[in-house]
């Protein structure tokens, strides 16, 4: 070992490697309990950060995209099932969820520096922001849509004839929800040609 580490690291390493005088049982018990507490605490914190109020508090959305969403079927409908922000914008699987959460922290920077804090600024950035989300959904095969709307579970015969026909084709062509269903919960960007597969 050619590299000489600083003294405190060496001391810590020695202490870390030294067998303790505690019983293996106590070490295991403490370890397991701490593991449960930390893991549970981490997940609880994660759940807390997936609540609508929490989203609104740090992402620039309360006066624009949130207001738009409130009028749509995903917020207000006859059966009372509601898809809140994370249902569409945060993946359910653990690793993609962490990746998404870290990526989304970039938006906190935008909030702090007021990059999209006026309606005009928001509209100027809307296409860029929307495109990013569309690309993300395309890349994961609209996973968040499919958590509720599964192609395989859809009864195409009870859909409107057009919907049934186009869904059938879309399934065969391997299309994904977001290819057509853009702007269902928020306004579409201005002055841009929005490509929809239909």
């Amino acid at each position, binding site marked *: 070992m050619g590299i000489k580490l600083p003294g405190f690291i060496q001391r810590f390493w020695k202490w870390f490697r030294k067998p303790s005088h505690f019983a293996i049982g106590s070490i295991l018990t403490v370890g397991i309990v701490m593991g449960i507490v930390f893991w549970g605490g981490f997940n609880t914190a994660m759940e807390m950060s997936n609540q609508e109020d929490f989203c609104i508090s740090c992402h620039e959305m309360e006066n624009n995209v949130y207001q738009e969403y409130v009028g749509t079927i995903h917020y207000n409908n006859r059966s009372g099932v509601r898809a809140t922000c994370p249902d569409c914008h945060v993946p359910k699987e653990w690793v993609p969820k962490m990746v998404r959460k870290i990526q989304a922290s970039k938006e906190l920077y935008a909030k702090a520096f007021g990059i999209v804090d006026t309606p005009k600024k928001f509209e100027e950035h809307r296409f860029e922001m929307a495109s990013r989300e569309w690309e993300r959904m395309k890349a994961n095969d609209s996973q968040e849509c499919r958590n509720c709307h599964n192609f395989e579970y859809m009864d195409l015969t009870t859909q409107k004839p057009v919907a049934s026909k186009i869904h059938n084709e879309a399934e065969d062509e391997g299309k994904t929800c977001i290819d057509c269903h853009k*702007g269902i919960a928020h306004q*579409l960007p201005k*002055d841009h040609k929005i490509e929809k597969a239909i």
Partner: protein
Amino acid sequence: MKGKFVVSALLAVCVSAAAFAEVTSLRGDQGIGEGNEVVAIKQVPKKQDRLALDYVNQPPLIPHSTDQVQLNPSNNGCLECHDVDKYRKSGAPRVSPTHYMDSDNKVLGDVAPRRYFCLQCHVTQVDATPLVENTFQPAGKFGQ
């Protein structure tokens, strides 16, 4: 004397009745403490066939709900199915060629700005009876 009394009593009744009639509020014949009667929102039927035209050049009625369609200066959700390049796939009625003409009758490549807001002329037909009686009779083949 007795006649005078009767007349004045009758007059008093008439005047007070008239006064009472005058204070009917804009809400109609409802007590101040009572809530307004809320008329149920009319529903668009789930399945509705295309509706017949009642006269020539009538803007066809919309037989489906348009609640979730984005129709604003930045986007026209109607054209996603009804535009010339989409109607064959969607099976929706095609936008009439007149809608591509500007005020000088020049044909444009897109729906003319003056025809852009579909819901200005085309309205959704809800499941409702007419509010007022109407004796209009469509002529000839119209209305069938």
